């Protein structure tokens, strides 16, 4: 069975459900980045760092490789070329979602997200990507 890869958008609304699911999920380093980048208190940053280390020790952490970065860039480039996104959008637009998406299908995972729109867009250029809205997954 494919495993869920949780996008950053699900941790706040579904935090009560995630703990029991943690031995069946993978975690992306990109998600850890997104969650860490919003930390203000040092103690919160330390807890997120401990979470990252634990995920790594238990082989649950997916870290994008060079190939993943290049594939993500190519996906966003194709969206731009096909005019599915504005050609003047900054290079970082969709960067993290494309990295999470690429990590998902190369690790036999599917994405669980609240941000279904961006991932549905990425599916147009990442045919192997599978995505489910968080509401549908958790309910």
């Amino acid at each position, binding site marked *: *069975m*494919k495993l*869920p890869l949780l996008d*950053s*958008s*699900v*941790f*706040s*609304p579904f*935090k009560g*459900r*995630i*703990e*029991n*699911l*943690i*031995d*069946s999920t993978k975690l992306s380093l990109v998600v850890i980045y*997104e*969650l860490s980048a*919003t*930390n*203000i*208190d040092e*103690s*919160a940053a330390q*807890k*997120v760092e*401990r*979470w990252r*280390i*634990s*995920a790594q*020790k*238990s082989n*649950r952490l997916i870290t994008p490789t060079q190939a993943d970065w290049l594939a993500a860039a190519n996906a966003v480039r194709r969206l731009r070329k096909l005019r599915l996104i504005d050609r003047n959008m900054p290079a970082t637009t969709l960067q993290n979602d494309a990295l999470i998406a690429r990590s998902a299908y190369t690790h036999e995972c*599917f994405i669980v997200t*609240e941000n279904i729109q961006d991932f*549905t867009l990425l*599916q*147009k250029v990442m*045919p*192997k*990507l*599978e*995505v*489910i*809205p968080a509401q*549908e*997954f*958790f*309910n």
Partner: protein
Amino acid sequence: MGKKNENENKTGGNQISNGLRDYSHLPRAKDFKPSKRLSREMQELKKATREALKALEEEEKKYGVSFT
């Protein structure tokens, strides 16, 4: 070899006739049963997850910064 689903699209998912995507082939949270015996690493991960999510929630309340 079975007949390929006529509605199968290039995303590996199924698209139903009204244009909405069908996710029925993907597992749901309820399909993943928590292990009765977790390894030490998984116990640590579970605890670290709980503590990190709690800390993020407190930050959200304290500063109004959404972590998603």
